[in-house]
């Protein structure tokens, strides 16, 4: 069973060595962006690494759960830093391709909505949100400062975020810890619903929405998500717990209490299974956790640019 110090050590060590909490490579982080312009531009896409980390999150969730379940994990704990080494995780290639397609789609959706956005590539720093969520105030502040410098240097007027965690970090946390970044807009606030249609190849017309806690509660974008999905031509079904009363995917506990996180994910998937259609989320953390237990897609996989 891993103690907190080992998990925190693993993340901080990765961040120090590679600039990413799960040691994602520059190639993994930026390969999706072939053909996407580089800054400067008025709108800058800031991913905060989170979508790109889905494959590594998925792999690390499994690895952490296995270590916590292993009768020999006491040895791992005693070996301390070696435990972190043992967590070097190989991302799933299929999932990586899916994530790349989502990110390219995000760029296309913005373009179809009249927004030409750039992306910085491998030099884009990690947002630090996991450090905040683990209670690591000083490392978070340090990372936030790095991001703030990066955003200011980009000279973008608007920072476009793609996921609720990164949006929350920039919009709510940075001003509290290090200062305000340029204007931050979540992609759902910018995409024109009338410029969106059902993505070719998605077999179902029925979707059941799993709301990310942050997207609903902190950002209030759950209504906008439904507007976009409905406008694309989907029938949207609601679980008993949805909107601001959604039920967590378990993700926030997946690094410190991976078996508890897995059980929460199972309970959420069970709630969703009562409804018809494909389960859809708008958050990479939800996708990594719930998607480990069954079919879950991201909203960026079910819509595409085009008028109905």
């Amino acid at each position: 069973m891993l103690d907190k110090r080992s998990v925190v050590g693993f993340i901080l060590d990765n961040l120090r060595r590679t600039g990413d909490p799960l040691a994602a490579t520059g190639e993994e982080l930026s390969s999706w962006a072939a053909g996407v312009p580089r800054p400067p531009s008025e709108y800058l896409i800031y991913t905060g690494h989170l979508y790109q980390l889905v494959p590594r999150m998925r792999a690390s969730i499994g690895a952490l759960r296995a270590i916590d379940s292993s009768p020999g994990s006491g040895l791992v704990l005693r070996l301390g830093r070696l435990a972190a080494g043992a967590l070097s995780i190989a991302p799933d290639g299929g999932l990586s391709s899916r994530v790349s397609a989502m990110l390219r789609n995000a760029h296309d959706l913005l373009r179809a909505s009249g927004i030409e956005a750039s992306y910085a590539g491998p030099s884009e720093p990690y947002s630090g949100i996991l450090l905040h969520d683990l209670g690591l105030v000083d490392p978070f502040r340090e990372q936030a400062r790095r991001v703030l410098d990066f955003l200011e240097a980009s000279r973008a007027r608007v920072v476009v975020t793609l996921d609720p965690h990164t949006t929350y970090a920039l919009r709510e946390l940075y001003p509290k810890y290090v200062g305000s970044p340029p204007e931050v807009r979540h992609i759902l606030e910018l995409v024109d619903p009338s410029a969106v249609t059902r993505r070719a190849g998605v077999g179902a017309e029925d979707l059941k929405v799993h709301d990310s806690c942050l997207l609903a509660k902190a950002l209030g974008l759950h209504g906008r998500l439904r507007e976009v999905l409905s406008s694309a031509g989907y029938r949207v079904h609601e679980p008993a717990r949805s909107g601001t009363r959604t039920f967590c995917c378990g993700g926030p506990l997946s690094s410190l209490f991976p078996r508890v996180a897995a059980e929460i994910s199972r309970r959420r998937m069970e709630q969703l299974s009562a409804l018809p259609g494909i389960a859809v989320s708008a958050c990479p953390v939800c996708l990594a956790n719930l998607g480990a237990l069954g079919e879950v897609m991201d909203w960026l996989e079910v819509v595409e640019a085009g008028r109905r």
Partner: protein
Amino acid sequence: MSGDPFLELKREAYRWLSDERARAGMERASASFEASRRLLEGNAYVEELAREVREVKRRALRELESLVARARESLERNGAHVVVARTRDDALRAVGDIVGSGKLVVKSKSIVTEELGLREYLRGLGNEVWETDLGEFLLQISGNRPSHFVAVSMHLPREEVLDLLREKLNYRGPGDVPSMVGAVREFLRDRIMRADVGITGANAVAAEDGAVVQVENEGNARLTGTVPPVNVVVTGIDKVVPTLVDAFRVALLESYYVGGTPPTYVNVTSGPSGTRDVEHVLVRPAQGAKEMHVVLVDNGRSAALGTPLEEVLACIRCGSCQLACPVLTTVGPAWSSGAYMGGIGVLWTAITMGAGAARPLADMCAECRVCEEYCPMGIRVGLLAGEIKRGAGQT
């Protein structure tokens, strides 16, 4: 034991996850409560009640020190003996002095007495002590911790209750719930009727009137407070509100938020039992308790005033947030400091035991903040638990 509070918490959570029977009990109870909770959706009367109670509590916290003094004065005027206990030890000593040793003591459910560890303390003084709330009684005989403020034993499925009663009460009846409840009723009635002291809690204390208000459904608190010759009320200073009408509002709201319905009983106690029916001469007792003692416990509460934790003192302990919490309803009583569990438990632990004791528990809060959507008092439970995780309140 590893000595690492994080690992102890994790081990306890994993132990709970492996207990299929206990998890089944929790899931059944959660589903039942969720159905009750839905009865409140769109209920304008309850929403208005919640708005009024938020205002009552806001006003009360602003003048808490003077309200506590006023409550003491009014209760004493009504014939009760009052102690304001600054610390946990002060509170235990005060109750211990009243009860003494070698007594039969019965108790109704009270989170503050859990906070104090009162039952164990009184047993340590050589008293026989019985919980009379069914859920608390089951926890007492099983050695389990509560998993919810009100539905304390929601993690105990009927199968485990049957095993417990067979082992501890030598119960040989059938395993259906009504039969088991009947057996406990007989056992506890006998203790209540013979008891020397009855200890009760409070949902609210009216400062102006000098009255204690308590809601319940089982009827045990009413018996516990009136049948034994000595009644000791133990409650927190945060329960003090200006008037009896305010106190009723608090009690009613708590009841609605627990079960979606009004309470079966609302007990108001303003002093010891007495009669003036013969020549207007006061004689104590008549049919109720001869003595009434009230111990108002501070234990960190007044220190929370003026800090970010002040809003937590408005908590009416309905446990609505706990039933909505994906983590607590998954790991049950594992996520607890004893009396206080879940996200709101992190905050109450910080108030009553210090931020240092609360911080390891805060690691288990997912900060999804759904609890806040269910709290009738608008307490920012998830936000504040997150701040404790990040070191708030620690020196």
